[in-house]
C-alpha cells in the first residue's frame, strides 16, 4: 500500500494549489484508528495516512464547507454519501475534487481492542502483511485484518470510490469475506415484539443524548437546527426517558429513509456503542423491496420519499 499512499500524497500535492482544503486522514492518538486531517498547506500532506485504519467517512464535512473548493479522499462507501449529498444538491460537484480509493475494508477499533484485549493500553500498532501488530501493556499480538473489519465491510458492494476525479491505485472488487457477523436486525427478528420493545428500552437507557450519531451522520444536514433540540416543533422532550431517546432514533431513521447509505457512522460514533443503525437498515430493506432503490448510487435520481408513482407496483394495499 506504500505506493498507493505516495500516489495519493502526490495527487493531493498537485491539486492543493487550486483547492481551499483537502480532507484526508492522519495518524490518530492511538494506533487503532486514524483521524481526519484538514490539509491547507503543503507540509500537511506529509501527515496523510491511508490504510485500513481510515475508518471514518469524511463526506459528512462537505455540506459545512459549501462555498469552498474542497478536495476529499474517499473510500467506496464514503463516495456513496458524496453521491447522496450531490443528489440532494447539498454540495456542488464543480467545487469538489474527489480522490478516490480502492478499499479492502476498514478496521473497527472497538472490535480490535476487544480481540487483542488491549483496552486503552496500546503502546504501538502497525499494519504489516495483512495483520495489525499491536504492542500493549498486556503484551504483543497480531490481529488478522480480515477479522477486525467493520460490520459494514461484510456488506460492501463497491470498493472503488465513485464519483471520483482522481483514482489512486488499481480498481478492484470488494473484499471477499466470510462469516459476516450477525446484525442486530437479525437478532431482533428472532425476538417477540415485546422482547424487541424491551431491548430498545434497555439500549436507550444507556444513551447519553450526546447526538454523536446525528453529528457524525453525513446526511443529517439540519445539524444546528435539529428538531431533537427544538421546542418549535417540540417532537421530543429533553428528559432522559428511553421513550424520548427512542423517538429520536425513529426520527433519525425516518429522516434518512431512502437517503441513508448505511455508512455506519452513527454506530461508529456512538460513545456507548448502541446498535442505532438497525432501524435505518430495516427501512433500507423495505425501500429496496418497495421501490427497488438504494441510496448513494446515482446522483441524478430523486430519493423515493420525495416522489411517487400513481400505481405502486410493490405496494399491496389492504382491502377492507
Amino acid at each position, binding site marked *: 500500500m506504500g505506493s498507493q499512499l505516495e500516489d495519493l500524497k502526490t495527487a493531493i500535492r498537485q491539486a492543493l494549489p487550486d483547492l481551499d482544503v483537502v480532507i484526508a486522514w492522519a495518524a490518530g492518538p492511538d494506533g487503532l484508528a486514524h483521524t481526519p486531517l484538514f490539509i491547507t498547506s503543503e507540509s500537511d500532506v506529509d501527515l496523510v495516512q491511508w490504510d485500513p485504519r481510515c475508518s471514518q467517512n469524511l463526506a459528512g464535512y462537505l455540506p459545512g464547507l459549501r462555498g469552498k473548493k474542497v478536495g476529499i479522499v474517499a473510500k467506496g462507501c464514503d463516495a456513496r454519501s458524496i453521491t447522496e449529498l450531490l443528489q440532494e444538491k447539498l454540495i456542488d460537484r464543480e467545487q469538489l475534487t474527489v480522490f478516490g480509493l480502492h478499499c479492502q475494508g476498514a478496521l473497527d477499533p472497538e472490535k480490535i481492542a476487544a480481540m487483542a484485549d488491549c483496552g486503552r493500553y496500546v503502546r504501538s500498532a502497525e499494519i504489516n502483511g495483512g495483520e495489525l501488530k499491536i504492542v500493549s501493556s498486556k503484551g504483543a499480538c497480531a490481529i488478522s485484518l480480515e477479522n477486525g473489519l467493520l460490520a459494514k465491510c461484510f456488506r460492501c458492494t463497491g470498493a472503488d470510490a465513485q464519483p471520483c476525479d482522481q483514482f489512486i491505485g488499481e480498481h478492484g472488487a470488494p473484499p471477499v469475506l466470510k462469516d459476516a457477523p450477525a446484525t442486530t436486525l437479525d437478532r431482533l427478528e428472532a425476538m417477540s415484539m415485546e422482547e424487541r420493545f*424491551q431491548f430498545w*428500552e434497555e439500549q436507550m437507557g444507556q444513551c447519553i443524548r450526546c447526538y454523536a450519531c446525528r453529528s457524525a451522520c453525513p446526511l443529517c444536514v439540519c445539524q444546528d437546527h435539529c428538531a431533537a433540540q427544538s421546542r418549535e416543533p417540540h417532537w421530543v422532550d429533553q428528559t432522559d426517558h428511553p421513550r424520548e431517546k427512542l423517538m429520536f432514533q425513529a426520527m433519525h431513521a425516518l429522516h434518512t429513509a431512502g437517503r441513508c447509505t448505511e455508512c455506519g457512522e452513527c454506530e461508529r460514533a456512538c460513545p456507548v456503542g448502541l446498535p442505532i443503525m438497525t432501524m435505518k437498515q*430495516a*427501512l433500507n430493506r*423495505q425501500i429496496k423491496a418497495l421501490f427497488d432503490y438504494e441510496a448513494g448510487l446515482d446522483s441524478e435520481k430523486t430519493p423515493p420519499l420525495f416522489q411517487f408513482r400513481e400505481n405502486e407496483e410493490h405496494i399491496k394495499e389492504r382491502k*377492507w
Partner: protein
Amino acid sequence: MSVLEGKELRIIGFLCNWCSYGGADTAGVGRFTQPTDLRIIKLPCTGRINPLFVVRAFLNGADGVLVSGCHPRDCHYTAGNFYARRRLEVLRSLLPVMGIEPARFEYTWVSASEGQRWRTVVQKFTEQIHGLGPIPAFKSGTCLEACLGTAI
C-alpha cells in the same frame, strides 16, 4: 380523562379533511353504529401526516393508529396521498423493529361518500386492536414519573 378503562383501547385516527373525515361524517349521518374507541384527529391531507406522528402516538401509549385519506387520484391537493402512501408504507417496516406489532397500524382510503366502508374499516380495525390488546408499556414508567423519581 382517558379511554374508558377496560372497555376501550386507545385508537387514534388521522383523517384527511376532504375525503375520509367526510366519509366518517357520512357514516354518522347514516347512523352506522361503530365501536367508540377511535378518536379522530383531522388533518388537511394525508400528505400532512409525518410518519413520526404515528411513532409518537405509539410511544405515548396508543394501542392502534389508523390513517385514512382520499383514494389515489382523488386527493384534494392532487398528490398528497401518493406521498403519504410511500411514507406510511416505509413506516410499516419500522414499527416491528421497534417492537410495535405492525398490525397496530393501518392506512386506507375512504371517500366522503363511503360511509358504509368507513364503518367497516372502523369495526375491523377496532377488532384487530382488541385482538392485540394494550401496547407494551415502558418499564421505566411514564416520563413524568421518571422525572419525579430522579433518584440518582
